[in-house]
C-alpha cells in the first residue's frame, strides 16, 4: 500500500501526476485547468476520511440558476386548508413541498442520491413578498399517500427560514414538539410583514432580501442539510421592487440575479454521498459544489450581475475572490441589503453567512474569470490563522468558471458605488435595557454556553418584547471557529474585539463569525413574537452536539 505522506498545502505544485494517483486524487481537474482543483483537506496528511475516489473534469456543467431553469421557482397556488392565521387578514400564498429522496447529478456523469425539497438539490427557490403572507406545507413524505415509499426520507425534519422573523412555532426550532416525523406534515406560517408591525411600530428598513430555508432537526441537522435539505427564499418589498423597476437591481429569479450556494461534499466510489457522523469537529468535503454542481461553468454576458452568495456548507469556510482581480460590490450582508454598496476584493464566509454582490463582467468579452476560494482549511475546527489574517493559498481552488460572452443586449444595471440601497435604523445605546454575555466554550469534550449544557426546556435569557438588549458573544477559545446564528431578529454589531467592526458587518447580520478568541458586541431588538427561539453555532456538527441555547421573548 501507499501510505499518505504529510503534504503541506504549498507542496502540491510539486506533486507529479503519479503522486496524485497514489493519493487517490482527481487529476483530470488538474489537467483541465493547469492546477489542482481540490482543497487542502484532501491533501493534508494524516487525519480525515479517505478522499473521494471519483475523478472528473470540472467546468463541463452549467451552473444551475433560476434564470436558466436549473433551479426551479416554486409556484404558489396550493389548495390545502391551513390553520395559519395572519393578523393582516391577507390571503396567503400557499406552497406545498414534499421532502424526499431523489437521484441527481452533482459530479458530471455520476448519479447521487440526495434528500431534496421536492426532490431537488438545492431546493426550489421560494420568492417571498413583504405584504403577502406565505404558508409553506412541508410534507415529510415523498407523496401524499400513506403507503411507504423508498423515496421517503425516513428521518424527522424541522425547517428553519434562516433570517426570517416568524412566530416561534413556525421558526423551525430543533425541539421535540416541533419536529416533523416521517409521514407527517407541518404548515409554516410566514407573515411577511415589516418587523415591528405586530408591535405597532413597523420598520421597513428591516425587511429582508436573501433568506434561505434549511433543515434544523435536533441532532441530525448536519446530515440532513448535507444530503440536500437547503434552498433559497429571496424576499422583496416595495423598496427593493423599486430598485428593480429602476434598473438598479435585476428582477428576482431573472438571468442576472444568480444565487451561488457554496458547499463541499465527499463521495463514495458508487457516487453516493459520504457522511461521517463521527466527525464531531465538523465534517469537510473534498469536492466543491456550487448550486448543486461540482465546479460548474457559467456563461455570462459582459455586464453586471447580482450574485447572492450563501455558504451552505456544514463546517467549511470560504475566502473568495475573482481571478482577474476585479472587486465585488457588496450590496447585502446576510439577509439584508446594505445602506450603500461597499467594494470588497475578497469576502470571508462563515457557515450560513451570505453576501449579495454585484460583479461587473463589462469589457471582458471572450475572457474567462474564475471564482476562487483561497482559504486553507483542513479541519472542522476552522481554517488556519485568525479572522483578520486567515491562512490563504493562492490561487486556491476554482469554484466557478465564468465564460464571458458578448455585451448586454438587455441593457445593464445602473447601480454604482453611490447608489442608495436600504437605509439602516441603528439601535441606540439609550434603547438598551440589559446586557447579557454568552460564552461558547468546550468542557469535557462537549459544547456549552456559559458553562451550561443545552436544555430545550430551559430558557437562558428572557428578553422582553419591544425592548432592545446588548449581547456579548464570546468565543471561549481553544482555537475553534464558531459562526454564531441568532434566530428571529437581526443583530447590529457594535464592536468586534473592542474595535469598530468592518463597515460591511456593521449594519444587520443574522450570523456573526467568531474566530479563535473573538468577541462581538451586538445590539438587537425583540419584536412581535413572544415565544421560544435559539442561538447556536452554525458549524452543523457543533450544532448537532448541541452548541446552542434557548431564549424566550416574554411579554413586557
Amino acid at each position, binding site marked *: *500500500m501507499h*501510505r*499518505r505522506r504529510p503534504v503541506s498545502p504549498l507542496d502540491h505544485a510539486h506533486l507529479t501526476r503519479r503522486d496524485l494517483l497514489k493519493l487517490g486524487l482527481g487529476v483530470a481537474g488538474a489537467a483541465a485547468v493547469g492546477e489542482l482543483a481540490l482543497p487542502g483537506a484532501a491533501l493534508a496528511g*494524516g*487525519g*480525515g*476520511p*479517505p478522499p473521494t475516489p471519483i475523478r472528473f473534469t470540472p467546468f463541463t456543467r452549467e451552473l444551475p440558476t433560476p434564470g436558466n431553469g436549473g433551479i426551479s421557482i416554486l409556484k404558489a397556488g396550493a389548495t390545502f386548508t391551513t390553520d395559519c392565521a395572519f393578523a393582516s387578514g391577507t390571503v396567503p400564498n400557499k406552497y406545498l413541498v414534499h421532502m424526499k429522496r431523489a437521484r441527481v447529478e452533482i459530479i458530471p456523469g455520476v448519479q447521487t442520491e440526495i434528500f431534496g425539497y421536492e426532490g431537488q438539490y438545492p431546493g426550489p427557490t421560494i420568492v417571498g413578498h413583504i405584504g403577502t403572507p406565505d404558508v409553506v406545507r412541508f410534507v415529510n*413524505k415523498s407523496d*401524499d399517500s*400513506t403507503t411507504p415509499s423508498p423515496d421517503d426520507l*425516513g*428521518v*424527522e425534519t424541522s425547517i428553519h427560514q434562516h433570517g426570517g422573523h416568524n412566530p416561534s412555532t413556525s421558526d423551525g426550532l430543533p425541539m*421535540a*414538539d*416541533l*419536529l416533523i*416525523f416521517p*409521514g*407527517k*406534515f*407541518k404548515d409554516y406560517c410566514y407573515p411577511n410583514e415589516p418587523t415591528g408591525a405586530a408591535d405597532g411600530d413597523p420598520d421597513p428598513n428591516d425587511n429582508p432580501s436573501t433568506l434561505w430555508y434549511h433543515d434544523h432537526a*435536533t*441532532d*441530525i441537522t448536519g*446530515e440532513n442539510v448535507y444530503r440536500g435539505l437547503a434552498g433559497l427564499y429571496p424576499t422583496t418589498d416595495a423598496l427593493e421592487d423599486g430598485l428593480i423597476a429602476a434598473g438598479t437591481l435585476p428582477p428576482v429569479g431573472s438571468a442576472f440575479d444568480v444565487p451561488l450556494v457554496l458547499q463541499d461534499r465527499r463521495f*463514495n466510489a458508487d457516487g*453516493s*454521498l*459520504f*457522511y*461521517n*457522523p*463521527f*466527525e*464531531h*469537529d465538523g465534517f469537510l468535503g473534498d469536492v466543491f459544489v456550487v448550486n448543486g454542481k461540482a465546479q460548474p461553468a457559467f456563461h455570462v454576458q459582459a455586464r453586471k450581475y447580482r450574485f447572492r452568495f450563501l455558504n451552505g456548507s456544514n463546517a467549511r469556510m470560504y475566502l473568495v475572490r475573482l481571478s482577474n482581480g476585479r472587486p465585488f460590490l457588496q450590496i447585502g450582508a446576510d439577509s439584508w441589503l446594505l445602506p450603500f454598496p461597499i467594494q470588497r476584493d475578497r469576502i470571508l464566509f462563515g457557515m450560513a453567512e451570505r453576501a449579495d454582490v454585484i460583479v461587473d463582467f463589462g469589457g471582458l468579452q471572450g475572457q474567462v474569470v474564475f471564482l476562487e476560494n483561497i482559504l486553507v482549511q483542513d*479541519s472542522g*475546527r476552522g481554517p488556519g490563522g485568525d479572522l483578520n489574517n486567515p491562512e490563504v493559498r493562492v490561487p486556491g481552488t476554482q469554484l466557478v468558471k465564468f465564460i464571458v460572452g458578448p455585451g448586454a443586449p438587455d441593457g445593464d444595471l445602473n447601480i454604482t458605488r453611490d447608489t442608495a440601497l436600504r437605509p439602516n435604523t441603528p439601535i441606540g445605546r439609550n434603547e438598551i435595557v440589559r446586557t447579557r454575555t454568552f460564552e461558547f466554550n468546550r468542557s*469535557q*469534550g*462537549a*459544547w456549552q454556553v456559559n458553562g451550561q*449544557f*443545552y*436544555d*430545550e*426546556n430551559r430558557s437562558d435569557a428572557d428578553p422582553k418584547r419591544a425592548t432592545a438588549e446588548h449581547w456579548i458573544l464570546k468565543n471561549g477559545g*481553544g482555537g475553534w471557529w464558531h459562526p454564531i446564528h441568532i434566530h428571529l431578529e437581526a443583530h447590529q454589531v457594535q464592536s468586534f474585539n473592542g474595535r469598530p467592526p468592518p463597515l460591511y458587518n456593521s449594519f444587520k447580520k443574522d450570523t456573526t463569525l467568531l474566530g479563535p478568541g473573538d468577541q462581538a458586541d451586538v445590539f438587537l431588538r425583540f419584536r412581535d413574537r413572544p415565544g421560544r427561539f435559539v442561538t447556536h453555532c452554525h458549524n452543523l456538527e457543533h450544532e*448537532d*452536539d*448541541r452548541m446552542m441555547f434557548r431564549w424566550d421573548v416574554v411579554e413586557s
Partner: protein
Amino acid sequence: MSRRHLAWLGAVALAFALVAACVRRETAGPATGSPAVPLESRGTEYPGAQAAPAPAGQSPSGPHPRQGAPASHISTGLETAEARVAGSPRRFPNPELVDQDGQSVRFYDDLVRGRVVMVNFSYTQCTGACPRATAQLMAVQRLLGDRFGRDFTLLTLSLDPEHDTPAAMRRYLSAHGGGPGWTWLTGRREDIEAIRRFVGFTDRDPQLDADRTRHTTLVLLGNDRTGRWSSVPALIKPEQIVEALLRTAGERPAAAVAMQGACPPF
C-alpha cells in the same frame, strides 16, 4: 422529584403506549449477539486522526488479541467488520473485548450489530465528570424501564483497561445499580483507542487527547439497523437523552406525538 420530572415520566410512558399503538417498529436485534461474520469480511479501516489509512478489505493479521496486553504492545491491525454508517459502507471496529462478566465479546458483531445502542467512555476510578455522567445514565435507564436491556443498551468502554478488570467493572456496576443492558468493556488499550478514534471522541490537541481525566462526556446514540448515529452530552437532561434515543430508534417521543395527533398522518 419535581412536578416537571413526574410530568416527563408520564409523557415518556404515554409515548411508549402511543408508539406501541401506531408505529411499526422494526424487530429488535437478538438479545445475545449475532452470528459472527465470516473472517473474510473483516478487515481494517483508517482508524482515525492519528494513524495512516489502510486499504479497505485487508485481512486482519496477527493473533487474536488478549485482554491485558501491555500498552506498549505493537498493534498488528484492528479487526473490523462491514457496517453501514450514515448510508456509507464502513469498516466498524470489531476487536475482541472483555465485559464485566469476563466474557469475550466482539465489539461490533456482538454488541452493536442490529441494535440501538448508547456508547460512552469512562473508567471506574474516574472522579471528574464521571459520577455525574453515571448518575445521568442511571436516570436514563430508569426512564427506559424494562425497555432498557431489551430495546436499548449502554456500552461503556474503559479508558483505563489495565486497571478495569472484570471484577472492578462488576463492582462499579453493582455500586451504581446498573441493570442488565449496561455493559462495561475492557481489553487491549490500542483496541479501545481505535474505537475511540473511529467514533471521533478525540481532541486535536495531543496533550488534551492523552489526558483521560478530560475525556469527552458525549454519548453516542446509534441505530445499526438504519446506520443512524448522533451524539449528545451525557450531562443534558436524562429525559432529553431518552427523547433523542427514541428518535434514533425511529420512534416518536411523547411531545411530538401529542402535538401532531394520532396516526395515520393524513
